[in-house]
């Protein structure tokens, strides 16, 4: 039997007396693109941070690839990667220098070859000598994605992967992620506020509200189940609490 790529159980994070994430349990299987959705303060970034090992849960456990993140984090980290528009790369280093540093950190063999491939794949070759700090927001996002792909991760965690991208670049990034998943059978978990993107990209959605999971399912099932016309409407209904939630746990659709 295959273990899920992500298995979170009873995940709770409390700051002072405030529970930012409360008793979160979910599993994500291999080869899926799952969206972690919720309004501001719903607990998305906190959940991603705990999954990445940047933040210690107050209670609960996380297993990635069946490995306990609390005890064997360093066995897992080479197999995953992460990108967020809210976490920068060193501004004064060039695109190539940044990628070279991270390729070494991830222990990638044939570093120059791999960097050339990533530059080509994300159409960054022409700007490889430019300093990261001089790039536009969209170009920075592509560099961050290139960095996240250096080790060809089996699990990719993305925080708003297309924030600050123009519609053309955003569309190309989405297509790239779909192709990446299809080609490598990698698992992708992303947080996004772009509901159209979620409908296009994701085959599974976890809806967070007030630090807990309130609904889960494929985008079309959620739209149908909540009698709405789009994920945007589902999202608004949930965050404005115009839907009554089950007290027995999340709605699975």
């Amino acid at each position, binding site marked *: 039997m295959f273990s899920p790529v992500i298995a979170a159980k009873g995940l709770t994070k409390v700051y002072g007396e405030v529970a930012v994430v409360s008793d979160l349990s979910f599993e994500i299987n291999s080869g899926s693109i799952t969206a972690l959705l919720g309004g501001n303060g719903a607990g998305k970034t906190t959940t991603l941070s705990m999954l990445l090992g940047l933040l210690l849960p107050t209670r609960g456990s996380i297993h990635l690839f069946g490995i306990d993140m609390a005890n064997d984090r360093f066995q897992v980290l*080479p197999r995953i990667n992460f990108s*967020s528009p809210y976490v920068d790369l060193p501004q004064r280093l060039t695109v190539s220098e940044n990628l070279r540093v991270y390729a070494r950190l991830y222990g990638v063999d044939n570093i120059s070859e791999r960097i050339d491939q990533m530059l080509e794949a994300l159409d960054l070759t022409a700007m490889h000598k430019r300093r990261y700090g001089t790039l536009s927001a969209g170009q920075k996002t592509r560099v961050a994605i290139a960095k996240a792909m250096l080790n060809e991760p089996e699990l990719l965690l993305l925080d708003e992967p297309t924030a600050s991208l123009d519609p053309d670049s955003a569309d190309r990034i989405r297509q*790239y992620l779909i192709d990446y998943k299809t080609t490598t059978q990698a698992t992708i978990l992303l947080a996004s506020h772009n509901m159209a993107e979620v409908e296009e990209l994701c085959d599974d959605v976890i809806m967070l509200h007030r630090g807990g999971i309130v609904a889960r399912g494929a985008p079309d099932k959620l739209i149908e189940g909540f009698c709405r016309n789009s994920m945007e409407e589902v999202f608004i209904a949930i965050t404005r609490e115009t839907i009554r939630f089950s007290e027995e746990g999340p709605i699975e659709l």
Partner: protein
Amino acid sequence: MNFKVIRTEPTYKDESSQRVYAMCLRYLYLLRSSWPRIIELAYWPTVQMIMWGLISQFFAENNSWLAQAAGILIGAVMLWDVVFRGQLGVSLVFFEELHARNLAHLFVSPLRPIELIYSLLLISFVRTIVGVGVAALLAIPMYHYSIFELGLPLVAFFMNLLVMGWAMGLVVSALVLRFGVGAESLAWVVVFAIAPLSGIFYPIEILPQWAQSLAWFLPASHVFEGLRAVMIDHHFSFELFYTAALLNVVYLLGSVVVFLYVFSVARKHGLLMRIGE
């Protein structure tokens, strides 16, 4: 043009030395990217050397005691800069990660906190050698004083002072990690606070008794007493050397423990994602 997935199934090596090298490379790239940074490395040690060189020259011509120990001030100021540069070489380089808001990327990679420490210490060594080395070389034509004439004791003094700087730099970095970039001024404050107790330009025995008791807990005090012993009495005190080395082992291990502890606190409080903002 669409972005295209290029699959290579890359192979990996799990080598600590590769990760430490990666971080050193990152800091060397940073240094290389900015001429002011490179010049600044040598600028202050050189200014200090020039200022104290002139003072030494004046005293050497007017005071018989200092005339016997020509170069003692200039040697002391260059060695004190080893502590200062060593400390800054750790803390300022660590602050670069905070300013770059790069910590989250680093710590979702396989980089261990202890490997970050190794790389900070290595790059501090390089920065100190460059910074103090330039001043030391300039002192030869300017004042006909070569600190290199100290011979092997110079290595002992240098390493003890550098390790003391490392220990301070790690503690300062830990405090900034815990309390935020607002605590950065500690990097400048700490080293000046302990300078009067370190006996850089005068023997420890002239300090008040209570201050002497504190001073002997500083490796630098033993080093500068040792420097005077070599320059005035032409005698290398192994006792002073071993005491400084022992204190340094304790302080360096202590500072590593403090840094690693604060790192775990940072993970508990979510500081790795937030710091630098």
